[in-house]
């Protein structure tokens, strides 16, 4: 019979007390496991989100972190915009040679609490690190010539009920803002485990045609553009949506409503005079008839001089024989030297954010949970120590049968270790079970993908850690066992 079995029998003999002690240890370990897995998942999610298939973000000068949070994670306030002409430098201009892909993003609108992103179908050609790229769980990616169509992320679809064929109206500037014209959902993205699961992607052309989304052209540009506009023979619906402030989400809602009211009035008069928008009527809260029939006619795109973008996602081209990081250096220098925009490397910003703020908090949380495990360990100490007075005789019998002091000491230590390990196993299962059960809710609320089997390497430290803890807390009762006076304990009344 091994000493392990003797220790196990001793635990069985005090089944209730042993179970309660192990359960308290299990609860502590469950918390540690949950924190470790969440910590890893959040870090992974941030890093994953920082590399959605592009390596740089170009946006207005200002806070780099805000640009990343806003563009990658759809958090924080929208940043300023940069001109469309700047975006064109990446597709047709001086920056083209540095770039493999450049995707424009326009932010600022919402559908319920989710961000609406005006972008091009190229957005979905970017391949996240998994390499699989974006796929649709239902429907398809919108086409660039279907202006008022949209693709929604998996979380958005599951929480709002939007599905292929659904129509929705984004709100301007805030979840409760002015309601824009409706878009039709043509696709639902398969889950990606990235912030994009929580976004609504609309065709950038439709986005530009919404109220307050067109920049007022510069006077010189206006004159030039007028000729071009006339060429569209009044089919240019954009004028209806051409306020003096482009995507200006800083205005108070009342101001926006008032402005929109005036604009609509003016636009309606224009339409009536020109008689060119018979089909294109709007219906808004002011009683104007503005209902779109998007599927039935073509809109003219917003003139380029009235366009702005919030950010440009860049996948840089790597020159032959030159490391990817180095080949983009001239591009970074040129952009940052200018006064229009800045370029940020999302991975670097996120790393900084994690190192400065998130990591210390996570470690603090971990320290607290480890403290709970230590307290549970003290529970083992108390449980075994309290049992020592009733076990003195048992220890004396073993000694009389030939057990050495070291053997009885070891039996008590093994008992402590077994209790801790049982608690550890229970806690591991409990922790992962808890995460497994809460995974759908966590995924929906925080965009962090979890499952029962998600584990971290740090969890491997738990078992040896528990053994050490058990040995430490079991030491005191083990010493009591070691010092048991056999002769005295044997003659004591049983």
């Amino acid at each position: 019979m091994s000493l392990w079995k003797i220790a196990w029998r001793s635990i069985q003999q005090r089944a209730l007390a042993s179970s309660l002690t192990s359960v308290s240890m299990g609860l502590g370990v469950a918390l540690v496991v949950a924190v470790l897995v969440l910590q890893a998942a959040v870090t992974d999610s941030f890093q994953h989100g920082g590399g959605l298939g592009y390596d740089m973000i170009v946006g207005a000068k200002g806070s780099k972190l805000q640009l990343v949070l806003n563009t990658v994670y759809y958090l924080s306030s929208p940043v300023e915009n940069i001109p469309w002409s700047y975006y064109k430098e990446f597709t047709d201009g001086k920056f083209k040679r540095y770039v493999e892909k450049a995707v424009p993003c326009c932010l600022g609108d919402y559908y319920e609490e989710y961000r609406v992103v005006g972008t091009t179908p190229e957005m979905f050609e970017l391949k996240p690190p998994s390499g699989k790229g974006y796929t649709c769980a239902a429907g398809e990616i919108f086409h660039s010539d279907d202006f008022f169509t949209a693709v929604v992320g998996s979380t958005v679809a599951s929480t709002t009920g939007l599905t292929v064929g659904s129509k929705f109206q984004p709100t301007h500037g805030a979840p409760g803002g002015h309601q824009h014209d409706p878009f039709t959902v043509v696709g639902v993205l398969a889950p990606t485990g990235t912030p994009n699961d929580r976004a609504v992607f609309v065709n950038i052309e439709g986005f530009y045609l919404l109220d307050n989304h067109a920049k007022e052209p510069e006077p010189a540009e206006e004159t030039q553009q007028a000729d071009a506009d006339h060429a569209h023979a009044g089919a240019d619906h954009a004028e209806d949506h051409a306020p003096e402030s482009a995507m200006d989400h800083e205005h108070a809602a009342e101001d926006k409503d008032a402005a929109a009211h005036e604009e609509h009035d003016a636009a309606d008069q224009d339409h009536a005079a020109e008689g060119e928008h018979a089909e294109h009527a709007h219906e808004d809260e002011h009683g104007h008839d503005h209902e779109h029939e998007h599927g039935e006619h073509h809109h003219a795109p917003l003139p380029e001089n009235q366009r702005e973008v919030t950010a440009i996602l860049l996948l840089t081209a790597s020159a032959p024989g030159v490391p990817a990081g180095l080949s983009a250096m001239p591009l970074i220098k040129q952009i940052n030297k200018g006064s229009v925009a800045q370029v940020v490397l999302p991975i670097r910003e996120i790393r900084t954010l994690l190192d400065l703020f998130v990591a210390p908090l996570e470690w603090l949380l971990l320290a607290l949970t480890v403290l709970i495990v230590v307290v549970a360990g003290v529970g083992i100490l108390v449980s075994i120590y309290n049992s020592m007075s009733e076990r003195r005789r048992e220890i004396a019998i073993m000694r009389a049968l030939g057990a050495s002091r070291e053997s009885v000491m070891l039996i008590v230590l093994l008992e402590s270790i077994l209790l801790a390990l049982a608690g550890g196993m229970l806690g591991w299962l409990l922790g992962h079970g808890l995460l497994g059960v809460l995974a759908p809710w966590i995924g929906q609320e925080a965009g962090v993908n979890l499952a029962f089997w998600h584990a971290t390497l740090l969890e491997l430290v738990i078992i040896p850690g528990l053994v050490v803890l058990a040995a430490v807390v079991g030491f005191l009762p083990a010493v009591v066992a070691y010092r048991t006076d056999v002769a005295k304990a044997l003659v004591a009344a049983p």
Partner: protein
Amino acid sequence: MLQLKDIQKTYVEPDGAILKILDIPAFGVAPGEQVVLMGQSGSGKTTLLHIIAGISRPDSGEVRIAGTDIARLPESIRDRFRARTIGYVFQTFNLLAGFSALENVLLGMTFGGRSDAARARTLLERVGLGRRLTHKPAMLSVGEQQRVAVARALANRPKLLLADEPTANVDRGHQQQIVELIRQACREENVALLLVTHTAEVAEQFERVEHLERFNQAVASL
């Protein structure tokens, strides 16, 4: 088999007074011999058995068992020597409550370093408990518990069996059975037996009966 020489043992009482318990110039048990030791309560019988078993150390003197003076052995070696050479049957049986009859027997073997489940079963069958191997002590009668204790004491093939009033907690009807069981087992295993009792009926069965008061000078001087 057992030779005691000039054994002295004293205790310090709570008031600081020194109480001499044992003062034995000489005492011995031959190999295979069966000796009964009688004495009044408090005469030092249990203390003497503890010293012979190596559970306690005498203040002075020699305790030779099979030629080894265990009083001079370091504690760890003495423990191992006890496990392998001495069997002990306690007055209160002292079975471990969480262990089955078989495990209680195996426990003795574990500390002796030779776990032999087949022998443990054989011993239990020999004492009539072949069908009670997996029973915990609480499920056994008093007589059955004492039989498990006997099997456990013989598990490591000891050379000397010490029995401390093994019939004290057994009714008269079973006393004879228990004593005969112990004596028979010792004969079969060629084990020397030193059995402590204060029951005359038990003592009468032995050829050699010793009274502690007669050779313990500490008692004589009281």
